[in-house]
């Protein structure tokens, strides 16, 4: 009930109010969570990112001599993830500013943090893929992208294509990101969706091209 009231109140605010920098940081976040509820969920997501970093570094530390220990690794992962979310929010802020619209930063970055729980799910599924059965691997591939079907390389990461992580969860993340923009800007979903899909494609193509360039294309692909 409280959540519904919060959402109605948020919807009643004018666009100017929301765009004037006075927007509460939890405004418009996924169906109008209360401030406390949003804070709890956000902390849970941050803790889950730190946990993901801990497990990732614990796995890698045995293979790579120059990898940090798990606890510092968890801290680094958390900082990097927050920096990535802030950069992502700033990117959309710039895109909409170029079109003459102002996106409230704090609620949007909070919405992105909550949406990033889908990224966490995809990472966890991909990590579970090597030990999963055949049917489970197909499901993981559909949800978390075809990269989930590959066992992790022992030392050198396999060159990934730009769509290696594209699965249902990624599509959901794109949709949530677009929806958060649509809510924050008080406009339809189509344009934010086009912006988000274009940004996702450009980022992943750019990263794949950079990876190709960094590893060199002289001797063809590694088998």
């Amino acid at each position, binding site marked *: 009930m409280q959540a519904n009231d919060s959402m109605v109140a948020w919807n009643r605010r004018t666009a100017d109010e929301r765009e004037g920098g006075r927007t509460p940081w939890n405004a418009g976040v996924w169906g109008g969570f209360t401030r406390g509820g949003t804070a709890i969920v956000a902390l849970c997501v941050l803790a889950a990112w730190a946990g993901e970093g801990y497990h990732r570094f614990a796995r890698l530390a045995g293979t790579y001599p120059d990898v940090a220990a798990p606890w510092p690794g968890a801290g680094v992962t958390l900082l990097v993830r927050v920096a990535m979310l802030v950069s992502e929010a700033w990117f959309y802020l710039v895109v909409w500013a*170029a079109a003459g619209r102002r996106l409230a930063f704090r609620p949007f970055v909070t919405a992105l943090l909550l949406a990033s729980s889908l990224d966490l799910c995809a990472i966890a599924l991909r990590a579970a893929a090597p030990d999963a059965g055949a049917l489970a691997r197909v499901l993981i591939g559909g949800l978390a992208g075809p990269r989930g079907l590959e066992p992790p390389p022992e030392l*050198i990461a396999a060159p990934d294509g730009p769509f290696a992580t594209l699965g249902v969860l990624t599509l959901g993340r794109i949709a949530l990101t677009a929806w958060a923009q649509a809510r924050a800007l008080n406009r339809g979903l189509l344009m934010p969706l086009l912006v988000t899909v274009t940004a996702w494609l450009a980022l992943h193509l750019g990263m794949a*091209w950079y990876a190709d*360039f960094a590893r*060199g294309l002289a*001797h063809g692909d590694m*088998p």
Partner: protein
Amino acid sequence: MSGAWTRVGARVLLAALVLAFAGIGALRVRDDTHRWETPRWDARAFRVLRHGGDSVRVGGTWLVPVNPGCPSCLAALAVAARRAHDMRPRPRVVALLVDTGERRALDAVWRIDADVVVWDENQVWRHRWGGRRYGEVLRFDASGALVRPVRVERAALTVANHAPPGRR
């Protein structure tokens, strides 16, 4: 006024991002279309710092470019050396020290786990072969011709089949 400036600034920033994207694409295309030399194992192209492994029956050569200051690629070399040791016929593992000066190469030579250690003093690997990634295993047959690069964890599975290039 500040709104107009914000809009202009945002457009300039977006244009810069689009340019960066196009630049990365251009670099990739340029790299892809560049005619690099096909790598060939010939010890005379490099300076041999340590030679060994002649007592084993050698089935080709695994050349692993490493930088002495990179623990991860030295670990990759150690894995390749372990895998090679179990192979029959056993490939000769050559550590190619790249992107490093003579002094650091000479300092590193005795702590590197390989049959042969050579120093790429003329940057053959990077500038003529187009190599970029430390730790990849370049596999050559007994005559020194490139078979194909292999990922370390798959090397043990694929090295037994010495098919000439183009037959896989």
